């Protein structure tokens, strides 16, 4: 991994890293990926991935429910934590010129 890759994944992660922060995190990420590299020694050619622990013991049921209203309108409550809002809308910087 090099410093350009750090900036690339920071961009994918929607994180802003200063040059100093990127320099500081590079050796840490390098060390983590050296550890992670140990996995390559394992022959997994005949093994299926296990994305979820329950899939090891049974199929994951896709739970369905009747399409009925369970929650009542609580816009004011639900929007109380918004950093910027106006008349029931979340405010963000202009995206369409």
């Amino acid at each position: 991994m090099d410093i350009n890759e750090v900036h690339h994944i920071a961009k994918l992660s929607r994180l802003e890293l200063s040059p100093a922060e990127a320099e500081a995190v590079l050796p840490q990420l390098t060390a983590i990926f050296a550890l992670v590299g140990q996995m390559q020694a394992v022959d997994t050619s005949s093994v299926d991935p296990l994305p979820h622990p329950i899939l090891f013991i049974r199929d994951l049921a896709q739970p369905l429910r009747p399409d009925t209203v369970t929650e009542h309108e609580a816009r004011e409550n639900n929007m109380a934590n918004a950093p910027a809002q106006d008349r029931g809308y979340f405010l963000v910087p202009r995206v369409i010129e």
Partner: protein
Amino acid sequence: MSWHQKSVAQLSKALINKEISSFELSTYYLERMADSRNLNAYLDTLPELSLAQAKEADTLRAQGKAGPLTGIPIAHKDVFVSKGWATTAASKILEGYISPFDAAVVEALGMPSERHPHAAGMVCLGKTNMDEFAMGSSNENSAYGPVLNPWNTKCVSGGSSGGSAVAVAAGLAPVATGTDTGGSIRQPAAFCGLTGIKPTYGRVSRYGMIAYASSLDQAGPIGKTAEDCALLLSAMSFHDPRDSTSLTDSGEDYARHLHSSWSDKDQNKPLAGLRVGLPKEFYADGLSSEVAQALLVAKDALHSLGASVCEVSLPKTQLSIPVYYVLAPAEASSNLSRYDGVRYGHRAKEYSDLVQMYQRSRSEGFGEEVKRRILVGSYVLSQGYYDAYYLQAQKIRRIIAADFQAAFNQCDVILGPVAPDVAWNLGEKSKDPLQMYLEDIYTLSTNLAGLPAMSVPCGFSKGGLPIGMQLIGNYFSEARLLQVAHQYQLVSDWHLRYPAEVSA
């Protein structure tokens, strides 16, 4: 014996016998909390709200509507959203956040309501400190400062449920909730001399539990005794249609085996017939001699209770670290993409456009370790690396789960350490993230496989710090694990000891 030294089971009796009211008990704990702020166990407390709940609990009792937990105080890890108390998951990005709803766990343990008439009626004392977004093994990653271990305030509490563990260990709550993604219930319980259980994945609803790594996260109780954990888990575990991975067969009485023998093989030996497996990879390089010695004594204690002991093998133990540190960050990078500064949470003051608003809000709001894990997660999921890292980790995860099943052909319960050593000094490992990751070696594999596992006090180091043993069971065997732990606690007193300044 002071009130804070009593177990939940004992407090339940005291409330029934009217030796104390919930209001008096809650007041007692709130006063202790106010006197112990230096430990930094709690992030938010609202004494008036706690006492209002206590009054309500006393009224329920007077009306004959009390259950076994009604009126008993509890502390909730700040990863559970709660109406009233602020919820931050110990992150600056959620500073000041007030949830419009209660997490399923908070709701089930809280005051009964029209919507939830069967809630347990416990009194919430406040929200406990933790590693930010549950990412850490020492509680030093909290944006609101570390939690101090009451056994030695120069030492870490363990993490990520460090505040919950310290609240119970220091007598600031009789019991607390925690969550465990890679050891976050078991390791702080071990470092603080407590009993904790991470149940089988899917036993406890994750609704309202702030997500870190969704295929690994599971909630459970931290308490003084196995009996208390059984009582709490019975109230926490139920099928919840609001969590699509909540198991439909979740609700059961986890205390049902506590007082009975493992089998009817030998009337004088309660654990006769139990087969305990010792994974040879757990008793190898890296395990401190003090922890190894304490485990040897614990193994002998189980043997004298009638259990047989054999060696088993979990060959991929070492690999659980890289597998976990690929999968958990991958899931975290996805889960934490929701913090965008739009609907809730921190928003940067200055930005020129929407993308910069996202980037600055997130960079200002997240701490170092959280950013590091997001970066790792984005990398392993990115084009060109997905197969080599993410998919390979999921494949080894299946091998790890299969290795456990091979071990459970030879034994009923696996006995091992929770952590390589006792609590380390504050600051000792915080500069090197990798060194901290290696501390999780004995706890990660059970999360990867989804198995239940416990931490049970089994000794002390020469320096006076608690040592915990880990009991791992097969899927859905929580009641049996708790039975083994309870029978062990009937013949040992490690779980009954208190730090010197807490004994008063």
